[in-house]
């Protein structure tokens, strides 16, 4: 029971982190029709920027400065890169963001090198918040949950209570009408891209110290973020939230409970071949849930796309 609680908290942290990325990605997609392949690269930039600031001004200034800086970079890329490609259609846009992901990774290596950098949890937060049956929950995890929830609430507030939020919501439901209402669409696009990438930046700032900050961190998370918004339904913020938490919990639980295929197979009446390593089915028999934890989201996505292309909460076709 206690272990379940610990896993719930761990899964929540992962899920909320994913949500900060997927929220921005789904916002950008809904508004602009662009699936930003480089989204996780902005998450990486967030971590690196925050590290660079923290070297001089400490962690908290990093948290304050890095996300807007990432957002600014995102907005500039939209203004001077993506907007140009927009005229060619969505597939070239996707190719552009793919190239962007490559380039950002190379640029990060150019500036900060190929190795992991020493971006660490601030000392104020290096203590155990509480413990559950001997499993200590570090304060930083609580902090991450706190920040994620705060961001989520702020996003909710902006989207439902402000004028800009109304326009964005209108664009989510009726993509083509916003322009007809006389809004400066290119500016809105640039803003949404900036805010979306800025959100990814926040995720990078707070995840960098625990998930380690290195040039491959974007690749590690990149595909999963894509998968999340496809499962949740493209364009649906609630879908992104549910799918993020779902993936967070599924992977956490699959990793911490060592469910073995062997038990399942003997349970339904098969007998274990001996010796196991000579059997043609050895890989199947020795399969365990931690092994497949990381591919579960992909399996889920393929099932969703094959049977329910709108995703869990989506209204629009991909």
């Amino acid at each position: 029971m206690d272990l379940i609680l610990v896993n719930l908290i761990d899964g929540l942290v992962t899920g909320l982190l994913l949500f900060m990325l997927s929220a921005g990605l789904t916002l950008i997609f809904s508004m602009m029709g662009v699936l930003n392949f480089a989204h996780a690269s902005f998450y990486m930039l967030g971590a690196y920027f925050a590290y660079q600031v923290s070297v001089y001004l400490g962690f908290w200034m990093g948290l304050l400065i890095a996300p807007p800086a990432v957002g600014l970079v995102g907005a500039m890329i939209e203004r001077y890169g993506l907007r140009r490609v927009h005229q060619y259609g969505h597939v070239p846009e996707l190719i552009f963001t793919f190239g962007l992901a490559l380039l950002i990774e190379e640029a990060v290596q150019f500036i900060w090198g190929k190795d992991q950098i020493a971006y660490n949890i601030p000392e104020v937060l290096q203590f155990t918040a509480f413990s559950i049956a001997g499993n200590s929950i570090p304060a930083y995890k609580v902090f991450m949950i706190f920040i994620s929830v705060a961001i989520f609430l702020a996003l909710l507030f902006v989207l439902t209570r402000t004028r800009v939020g109304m326009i964005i919501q209108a664009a989510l439901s009726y993509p083509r009408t916003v322009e007809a209402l006389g809004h400066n669409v290119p500016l809105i696009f640039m803003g949404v891209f900036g805010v979306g990438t800025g959100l990814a930046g926040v995720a990078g700032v707070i995840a960098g110290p625990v998930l380690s900050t290195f040039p491959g961190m974007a690749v590690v998370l990149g595909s999963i973020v894509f998968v999340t918004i496809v499962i949740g339904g493209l364009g649906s913020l609630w879908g992104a939230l549910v799918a993020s938490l779902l993936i967070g919990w599924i992977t956490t639980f699959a990793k911490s409970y060592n469910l073995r295929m062997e038990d399942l197979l003997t349970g339904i009446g098969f007998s274990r071949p001996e010796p196991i390593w000579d059997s043609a089915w050895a890989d199947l028999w020795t399969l365990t849930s931690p092994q497949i934890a990381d591919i579960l989201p992909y399996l889920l996505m393929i099932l969703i796309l094959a049977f329910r292309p709108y995703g869990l909460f989506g209204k629009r076709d991909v």
Partner: protein
Amino acid sequence: MTEPDQKHTPPPARTPVRARPAPVTLANALPWILGGLFLLAMPFIFQSNSAITIMNQMAITIIFALSYNMLLGQGGMLSFGHAVYMGVGGFLCVHIMNWGDVFALMPLPVLPVFGGVFGMGLALIVGSFSTRKAGTIFAMISLGVGELIAACSVIIVAFFGGEEGISGDRTYGLPFFGVEFLHQIEVYYLTAFWLMLSALLMFLFSRTPIGRMANAVRDNPERAEFLGYSARWVRFYSFVAAGFFAGIAGGLFAINYEILTEENLNLATSGQILLVTFLGGVGFFFGPILGAILFTLLQTVLSLQTEIWQLYVGVLFLATVMYFPGGLAGVLMMHALPLRLGQAGLLVGPYIRTLVPAVVCALGAASAMEILFHLRHAALGESEMTLFWITFDSHAPLPLAIAAVAAVAGFWLARRSAPAMAEAWHKASTPHGGAA
């Protein structure tokens, strides 16, 4: 798409003579004959083993890129998981190599067929649900399937060999007219043969009804449906054919390197072939060939010169997407009309005035990058570096300043004369532009 052979059909004027079934004319066959002769002659020009290795790698990349372009360029399907089909084809071929009894009865040149069939088999399964839509949904499914299979490589150890992959020995096959493929040059001719055959088959595929309809579905799937064709099945058949040729490339990879690992399946490899194909140009059949040659050269030659070659490739790729969506082939074909009109001469002056400063700018910028990179990442106390055969102190401000000035000045000059170049191009592309 411009079809090179169409201008050979007689113009249907008032005469009763209309388009005849085009026979295989010399003009049609010439590029293939030249290509074949070129492939035969190459080992005599570049004799070193490393050169032959590079050429083999090039040939495999060409087949793979052509196969990829069956999806992206011909069929309008953007895939982020094409490496998987090449990979599984390659894995199967290594398994066959290790299956002594069977392999001993099989001449090595036949092996890629099995890779092709296996790649096609996987494409049959995946294509059955992924080709329902093109565009974003296809891209997403291809990514998901790609990541899934790449991740499976550490789980299904029996087939993928886990983290170390699987390896085999090509020389255990049945000798082929006495050739046991011990030498690199023998493998070269095997690879070159398959390159010619696959390229020709893929070219011919683009000339079949299904190949033509692939273009139609790419351009306008809805209209194609109102012409009696199911867009989904047209995509499906292209996808399966692309899977076959990717598998062939995988088989050749297995023969050349005798080892396959997770790297042959993952997103990085899939992304790389997208990059190669797009750099070469997706709009023309020969585009991916150019892309594969260019990229392999960058990968093998440039990577020896600089550590940050991938950064340059990334910049080149983004610039291509932004400014030359037709890729290298597109840029070359922009000159077909001026050449045909006999007005290409108009371009020489403006080109020199723009491209020379542009090259200076690129070299200056690259030098600045190299100096900065050295400054930041060289071992402590090592401040000497060599660039363009000049050795200097990377910590001194002067070299960096020179590079920066060259970059800025080159940029300024190129930008100033760019409009004149564009104008010259328009003039050269208009009939009698020179006379007017």
